[in-house]
């Protein structure tokens, strides 16, 4: 039974020899203990207030900070929604400060309510649009602090705590010392109700109003809420107060900054005729005359345009610009809104009339029943852009409602009409 003896030896070797190595090689990593960051001011350093720091900047200047100075404050902004981008605002009791940083996820480390210390030595003060900011020198101008070195300048102290209380302001009493601070506007509403917070192409300014005074609310097209409809109603708005010469502006961090608003107001029609060569969701029908409604542009304004004057000749026309079908049974409190620009005609001559129909299907509009809307304010000439005002459509019901603009002219006194910014909004039932 030599084989058995051999096997016995084998197993001893197999088990014992490698076992020597097991102990040295097991890999277990301790979870790092929860770290409560603690900042200790280096000796020789001085803490100054944000107001003192900002005072070191002179308008239009670009200042290098060479003294061993620190500011401290709590984080009041967040880039989580992307509305605030590569920027962070902190504030102390003296004011708020914009810090420019080349990082897109600042909020995962610098959370709302986090106290931080900022080493200013080696950084620069400058301005963008007239707003003071702390940043780095990038090619001899104020720029963002490079990502890998952010931790050389920003130091956490403790874990995020309470966010500083917002300063209650009113639109007419805004002063520059509030720039960069978390502010609160009470009893305000939005002017562009039901429109998107931002157009998809670029950051967009919308208007906050207290009824008498306006303030710009600026929203990035990259914000996660950019495509949300602006709510209606009167409420409270929180945000970071800023300035972009010559206007004050407010940036919200996310939709939680809007309190007491109503998001049920939606756009039923939103036609700005922004696509070159297309009437978008609208259609046109020429009852008589060779000219037709067509998309057109003047400066940055886009609209649908119609005129019986062409090639030096006045031609009699009847032309309809007709909206897509709307199911107004899904909404209540519907409002129509648009602007007009007219020239070469006579104010109030009826060359442009506005109608609605509940039985129009398609094609020739003259076979359907149309009810005229007479409450709209219309341009009185020289292409003065005239808002129609809010036209109440709440009495109009039906699952197939169309709005139409009827242009008529004879061979004299031929007007040119431009219609744009057509909105129908309502509260979704």
């Amino acid at each position, binding site marked *: 039974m030599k084989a058995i003896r051999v096997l016995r030896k084998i197993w001893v070797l*197999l088990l014992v020899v490698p076992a*020597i190595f097991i102990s040295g*090689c097991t890999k277990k990593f301790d*979870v790092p203990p*929860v770290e409560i960051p603690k900042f200790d001011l280096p000796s020789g350093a001085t803490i100054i207030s944000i107001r003192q720091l900002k005072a070191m900047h002179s308008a239009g200047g670009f200042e290098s900070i060479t003294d061993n100075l620190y500011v401290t404050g709590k984080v009041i902004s967040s880039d989580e929604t992307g509305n605030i981008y590569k920027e962070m605002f902190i504030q102390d009791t003296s004011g708020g400060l914009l810090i420019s940083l080349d990082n897109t996820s600042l909020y*995962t*480390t610098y959370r709302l309510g986090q106290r931080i210390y900022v080493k200013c030595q080696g950084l620069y003060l400058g301005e963008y649009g007239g707003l003071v900011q702390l940043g780095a020198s990038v090619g001899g101008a104020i720029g963002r602090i490079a990502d*890998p*070195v952010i931790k050389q300048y920003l130091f956490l102290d403790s874990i995020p705590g309470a966010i500083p209380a917002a300063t209650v302001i009113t639109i007419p009493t805004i002063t520059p010392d509030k720039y960069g601070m978390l502010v609160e506007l009470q009893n305000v509403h939005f002017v562009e109700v039901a429109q998107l917070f931002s157009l998809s192409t670029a950051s967009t300014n919308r208007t906050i109003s207290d009824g008498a005074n306006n303030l710009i609310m600026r929203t990035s097209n990259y914000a996660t809420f950019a495509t949300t409809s602006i709510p209606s109603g009167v409420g409270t708005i929180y945000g970071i107060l800023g300035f972009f010469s010559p206007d004050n502006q407010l940036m919200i961090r996310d939709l939680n900054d809007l309190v007491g608003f109503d998001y049920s107001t939606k756009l039923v029609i939103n036609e700005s005729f922004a696509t070159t060569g297309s009437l978008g969701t609208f259609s046109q029908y020429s009852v008589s005359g060779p000219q037709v409604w067509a998309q057109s542009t003047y400066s940055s304004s886009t609209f649908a345009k119609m005129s019986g004057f062409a090639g030096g000749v006045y031609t009699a026309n009847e032309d309809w610009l007709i909206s897509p079908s709307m199911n107004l049974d899904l909404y209540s409190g519907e409002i129509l809104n648009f602007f007009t620009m007219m020239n070469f005609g006579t104010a109030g001559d009826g060359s442009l009339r506005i109608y609605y129909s509940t039985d129009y299907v398609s094609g020739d509009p003259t076979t359907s029943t149309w009810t005229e809307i007479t409450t709209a304010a219309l341009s009185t000439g020289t292409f003065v852009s005239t808002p129609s005002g809010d036209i109440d459509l709440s009495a109009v019901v039906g699952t197939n409602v169309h709005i139409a603009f009827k242009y008529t002219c004879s061979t004299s006194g031929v007007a040119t009409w431009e219609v744009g910014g057509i909105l129908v909004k309502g509260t979704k039932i």
Partner: protein
Amino acid sequence: MKRFLLLILLMFITTTLIEAQTSTLEGIVTDITGSPLPGASVNVGNKTFKTDASGKFTSDGIGYGKTDITFVLDGYETKTMNIEVNSSSVKLGYIQVKTSVADNGNDNQGGTTLSTVESDDDIKDQNVSSLLHSANDPFVSIASYTLSAGYFRPRGYDNEYSEVLIGGLELSDPETGRPNFSDWSGLNDATRYKESSYGLNPTRFSFGALSGASDIDVRASHQPKQIKASYSYSNATYTNRVMVTASTGMMKNGWAVTVAGSTRQGNTGYVKGTFYDAWSYFLSVEKKINSKQSISFTGFGSPAKRGMQSATVQECYDLVGSNYYNPNWGLQDGKVRNAKVRNSHEPQLLLSHFYDITDKIKLTTTLGYSFGRTGTTALNWYNSADPRPDYYRYLPSWQYNNPASTPDPTVAAQITDLWKNDENTRQIDWDNLYQVNYLSALSGEQSRYIVEERRLDHSQIALASHVNYEINKHIFFTGGLNVNLYKSRNYKVMNDMLDGNGYTGYWIDIDQFAQQDFPTDSNIAQNDMNNPNRIVKKGDVFGYDYDIHINSAKLWGLGEFTYNHFDFYAALNFSGTQFWRVGNMKNGRFADDSYGKSATHSFLDYAVKAGVTYKLSGRHYFVFNTAYITTAPTFNDVYISPRIRNTVISDIRTGKIFSCDLSYIIRYPKVTARITAFNTNFQNDTKTMSFFQDDLSTYVDYIVFGINKTHQGIELGVEVKLIPVLSLEIAGSIGNYRYTNRPTAYMSVENGSQPDSTQKIYCKNFYVSGTPQTAGSIGLKFVHPKFWYANLSANIYANNWVDFNPSRRTLEALDGIYPGDERLSLITEQQKAYNNPQFTLDASVGKNIKINKVVLGISVRMTNILNNTKMVTSGFEQLRFNYTTKNLDEFPPKYFYGFGRTYFITASVKI
């Protein structure tokens, strides 16, 4: 044609008629310490015999007259003797063979030839013995051991063109076609006996593959009766290795048993962070049923965990001051933690039946089952900063490359300083990742950083059976059948939430890129619409989950014909492959095309090869081989984004390979040499990749198909015995491996924001990468009769090309660039991995001591003695490219460097 058939018939008749007196040869093959070598092939004429567990062979049916007898065993030098057979029984006594190479210091042996029969130089023009189609020629052994340190691949062939088998059963991964070497790593002794062929040369266990095939002999009855243990110490990939192998040999009761085990351990390898924790086990039991039949069971596996290295850009290597910088690790709890850990364990179970139906007909059948897992961990993150230290925006160069910013040297200098002095800047800052997760947990938000494991779990049942039939002394037939049923599950598992100590993280199973691009669509970001917004905890499957099914069958046959001056062979292979995907998740980007079973894709392939050897004399041979092979595309070649879709590319093409080579071989007792010219054309090759496309700001899957390549070259191997104890060895290859057409790329956008599209790739005459196209080695081998041995070799590598980014060689990438623009050549020209040829020097020395029946051995192998740390082994252009700035410095190539000086010290004992 008729005349040809007649001629063959005539040859058969005449050869049968002249069957005359036969003799039986007997002998014992041993290594230089006198230990018997089982499993060695003994070739006489076209007959092959095997040595048994005690190294003994009996070759019967040998005709009278002078004949060559050759002994072949992988890992040993091939030894040929010319003997005169003049009686019915010739006893050759002990035949000692030398170890061919010091295999990474593992188990070095060597010795002198002390044959009992002297070679006869004077070969008469008569029965010229056939060439042995073995891997044991000077070129092959040097190319596969010494030159592999420089990533040299003979003839430029990828691994997928080689074949490794056990008992005729293929051990390749059906998904890639590549052999799974890691499945038996650490079992060097138990798997050392192989029968190999190089290139197209025929084998008697399979149809073979383009670059060769080897069949590992794991039969316990073929293992020498001994216990062998070795301990090795190294600074290369691991620090300590212990291997134990023990075999009983064939015992009187008809049983033979081999057991083996090993472990390889290291806290860090040559590259920091690359820890090694590998084990392996092996059991083979064989029972002789009767004189004709044996049954063998073999099971083995190699559970291994390894910390991986990642290639990075030269800027990082230069900043850190080492070409062995590894961005994958960081300090956690004061210890080095690697984010990329490979964890694999894929056991193989094999049941074989060996049946000598007659002494001329042998049937070998193997049934195999394998299963197991491989997985690699990686960091993943959600709406937070990239945790990889070598992310391009964290490097000083970004200050210059950033198109949105004016360069600022002081900022760049500041970052450079951090890279040089701050470990948390140049490595992963694990503590920070935990801290960010903790802050997220405080806010009730999902974790920001996790470690995920990308898993592939497979199971496979395979059956292989082949018959060897010696029809007569001129004709040898081999044929077989293989059936393979394979399934793998591919998915991600939450490996570590990077939480604890009072806070618990969670993760939501959505795709953040789709979420960003389609903020208002709650479905599109879902990874599994059947479980929307699922909360993922440690151990949960998430991200993607799909099965791959691949079934295949093969029928093949080989005829070998041996005549006085000509040997020839012809082989034929038919195979069928079918595969399909089963999605286990309904992905929001492809809701209608991700869940459930895809269509089945079937392919029929054939391969034919033939060759002829002209034996001018026993000293001079000319060999010509040729093959035409069609290859079904692999699963990954045709599925677009298989992680999330069932869709395949519209233009599926079958690969075609045409290959031929011509060799001239010299066999003198003191000089053996081979020179070969080869040419192989690949048609309809496919390459798949996935990368972040800057123009579209999303990940894309990119399949380049219809690639044609040609591999041409010359290889040379020479061995000269200068004096009995000293040999000179030369091996070299000069290649020209090129792309020969403009293939098409199929691009699929992962976030679903764009329809699929195609691009033409302008890469005609580009070089094939992944290997130096020119490599050579010259060495001296010293073997002293008192069991001393030493090797010294100088190696050279040249023409290693950086793998190019196909999407940079498109019209789209050159948009806005006109003739005369100097950027044109910068963007399109291919780079070399190194401009000057690279040299390395290797040496090894060893000594065996025999005390009674115990052999003690010690060996030291030093690789890259001159410490050349500038040799890129592989380089590749990043697939990311800035379409707007076209600035190549933003995403420069990434490199791996060959290790500097390493040592491997082994002490062994054999009883």
